[in-house]
């Protein structure tokens, strides 16, 4: 745990006084302190290309009056710096009124251990594994022209001090291991990417040569793509595989159910609470409480313990995801979804692990039900226009389906759909829900935060596939 005041001319009690003085009569606010250490070790083109280490320290001071947010951040944890921030906040909120007594619920539950993954494995051991990855892959297939593998490790300590001195802390480990391969055959190049990660030590993900299965998966995807033919263009049925393809859920409905867009009425979902937005059998939750997952948090970045939030239950819209600001203005409670990339950014309501729960059908039944369509197994990334509701995601492994049978692999293509209506087009929900491997980062308003997704196989009646074959 970091002691943020240890090397500062500012003592904890002085800081508490400045916070209480600045936030008196404000509706909400806090001082957020953060100390993060991260490393990146990259093997590329047969060599260790990069070994770097970052240490980041700073605070963000926030004051809220009614709908207005004043924010100031700095790297210097000092008397001067905090006072200057305080002046900035006061000058923005010239006439403040009222107080917000939204108490932070107490919880003793922790969803990950207090570890520093960077220190748990020596640099030499990490370099050794990366070299083994390179040798293993290059000896497996002569068509491999490029191998990139990297370790990303982080430990982030946060402390939230509220008016009156209430203090909340969290230490968050996070790691990721990624492998990318490029194959070249008959002048054609294709890539395959796979990775694993979460809030545990590197060894939890790499033990028993588990790194080999990450390599195998990246190579398998690249090999499939090498045989792919142009994707079709137009509307058709789409079967999505379980796990990572749930970024469809994240883009299509997740963002549209974040509190801020609904308070501002700019989300296509803002007037649909309590209404049917998905087929019967579709239940979607956003859960911050799953042990060691990438999107899990013991407390969010406002100090609220996270929870399992039911967003859509059996097709009916039940809840939005809320931070304190939007919860207060919408007269509801925070769902522990207030997150920020780091102390440089304001808090926004964000997703954690967004999951569609299992139904009772099998993937086989879905494939058999399709005359002409595609089967999408893996995705690159996605994006959504919250207001129009249109969203896309990019396939990185997909196959055509012809007369109920899986056919040839097809080239990467973008799929586009309409968020508020897509879940009504879900006609089968599989019994095979799976979490993603722990690699997702969600971007919103220029802030990236780690997230997770999960879903079973699903059949969508109609989506537009953005291929080139008419």
């Amino acid at each position, binding site marked *: 745990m970091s002691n943020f005041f240890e*090397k500062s001319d500012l003592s904890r009690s002085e800081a508490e006084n400045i916070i209480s003085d600045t936030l008196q009569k404000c509706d909400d606010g806090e001082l957020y302190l953060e100390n993060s250490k991260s490393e990146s070790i990259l093997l590329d083109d047969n*060599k*260790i*290309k990069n070994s*770097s*280490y*970052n*240490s*980041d*320290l700073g605070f963000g001071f926030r004051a809220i009056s009614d709908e*207005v*947010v*004043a*924010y*100031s*951040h*700095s*790297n*210097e944890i000092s008397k001067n*710096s905090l006072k200057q921030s305080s002046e900035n906040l006061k*000058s*923005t909120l010239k006439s403040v009124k009222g107080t917000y007594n939204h108490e932070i619920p107490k919880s003793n539950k922790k969803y990950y251990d207090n570890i520093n993954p960077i220190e748990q494995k020596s*640099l030499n051991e990490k*370099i050794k594994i990366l070299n083994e990855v390179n040798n293993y892959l290059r000896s497996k297939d002569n068509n491999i022209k*490029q191998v990139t593998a990297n370790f990303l490790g982080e430990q982030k300590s946060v402390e939230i001090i509220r008016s009156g001195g209430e203090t909340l802390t969290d230490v968050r480990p996070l790691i990721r291991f990624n492998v990318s391969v*490029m194959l*070249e055959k008959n002048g054609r*190049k*294709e890539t395959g990417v796979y990775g694993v990660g979460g809030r545990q030590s590197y060894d939890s993900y790499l033990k028993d040569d588990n790194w080999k299965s990450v390599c195998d998966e990246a190579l398998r995807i690249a090999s499939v793509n090498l045989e792919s033919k142009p*994707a079709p*263009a*137009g*509307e058709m049925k789409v079967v999505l595989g379980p796990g990572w393809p749930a970024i469809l859920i994240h883009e299509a409905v997740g963002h549209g159910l974040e509190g801020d867009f609904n308070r*501002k*009425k*700019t989300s296509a979902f803002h007037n649909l609470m309590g209404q049917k937005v998905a087929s019967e059998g579709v239940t979607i939750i956003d859960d911050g409480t799953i042990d060691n997952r990438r999107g899990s948090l013991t407390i969010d970045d406002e100090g609220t313990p996270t929870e399992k939030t039911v967003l859509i239950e059996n097709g009916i819209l039940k809840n939005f995801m809320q931070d304190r600001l939007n919860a207060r203005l919408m007269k509801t409670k925070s769902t522990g979804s207030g997150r920020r990339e780091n102390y*440089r950014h*304001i808090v926004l309501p964000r997703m954690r692990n967004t999951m569609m729960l299992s139904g009772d059908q099998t993937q086989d039944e879905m494939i058999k039900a399709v005359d002409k369509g595609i089967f999408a197994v893996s995705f690159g990334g996605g*994006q959504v*226009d*919250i*207001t*129009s509701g*249109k*969203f*896309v*995601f*990019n396939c990185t492994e997909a196959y055509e389906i012809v007369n109920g049978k899986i056919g040839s692999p097809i080239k*990467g*293509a*973008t*799929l*586009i759909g309409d968020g508020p209506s897509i879940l009504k087009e879900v006609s089968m929900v599989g019994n095979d829900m799976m979490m993603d491997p722990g690699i997702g980062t969600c971007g919103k308003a220029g802030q990236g935060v780690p997230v997770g997704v999960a879903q079973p196989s699903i059949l969508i009646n109609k989506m*537009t*596939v*953005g*291929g*080139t*074959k*008419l």
Partner: protein
Amino acid sequence: MVKDQEFLKKKASYCLGLAKKLGATESSVIVNNSVSETVNFRNKKLDESNRSDDLGISITTYIGKKKSSISSSNLQDDNLNILIEKCVETTKNTPEDEFNSLPDKDLLAKDFKDLNLYDDTHIENDQKIDYLKKLESAASNDKKIINTESSFAQNKSNFILANTKGFCAGYKTSSFTASSITVAKDEKSMERDYEYSSKCFLKDLDDAGELGKKAADQTIRKLSPKKIGSEKIAIIFDKRIAKGILSTFASAISSSAISRGTSFLKDKVKQKIFSDTINVLDKPDILKGLGSRNFDIEGVKTDTLKLVEQGVLRHYLIDTYNGKKLNLKSNGRCGGTSNLYFENGNVSFKDLLNSKSKSLYITETIGHGSNIVTGDYSVGATGFLVENGEFKYPINEITIAGNFKDMFQNITLANDLEFKYATNSPTMMIEGMVVAGK
């Protein structure tokens, strides 16, 4: 106030000195400070004010051909001591790479032109508020506009780049940025669009009223969109989308993609990759240019490069490491391009719209659908159907797809280039792409 050169230089030389003492044979350091103040409005009211003061330092140490780097936002000496010690220690344990080195001394920048990148003007939050009031009042004139969000940011930055080959230089830059995002609604649909202006000098910023009105007009015209069928059709890219295609081209000719063999433009120098009429320039010395600079992030001098001349690729974008690997000299493009642009074409915007009886005009794309390994391109798109030069109706929920190798050969550019961003393109038409819709 942003920290002065003396403060940054002192930190930089402290780091170089300490690294040497701890055993680094060479090292380089960048110290930067950036102070920005932003005010956001929503529906004609103050929504957020944000002040940020960011310090940063990044140090790379070499021991022979071994290299490692660290970065931090904590510039206190005791923290720097711990980090530099860690950096040198990591360097010792990192395997050698024969291409690791600082830039050759003769390539380092020596002439430092004043590129007019810093405006000392400070705009108080109250003045920002006045600008945003005017902007939002213009943006919300039409009843169809149901939400307006706008922002005004002032940023002042200063940096020093120093290395053990004697290079030590840096300068202040400023930017003033205003933006407006509007949401419009009718019975059938809700749509969002935006307008934006960013300049080095406050006095060059777009008029608040014009900016707000433009955002609103661009949003209202998107209402009640239709979905069209799948077909092969000529696509006209609005300037704000066309510049993205130029950015993809730039990543495909970066020396790292070329040396790793992961670009569809590998080995294409001296070959015709665009249609005859296309010229692409990267010009670092435009006064007040948003991408202007005297040297790249390694200190290497940057000259104007004619990257594409009459359709023929002339240069890659080369940094020191990948240059050595490719046996080419760095051309000062570590960190990417400066002011990158397509030269104007020969036809007017109007003639370009008129050149086909039917085409699609694209104003927004979503998704990360550019693959520089294969050249494949597939993105979600929003725009308008154009018939005989007239905008007929808005279109959405479609995708557009092709392969850059073919797309580049089929580009026609209008003559309406303007320098609004660091990377700029005139309006662009590409024939032969596929639209997927109904």
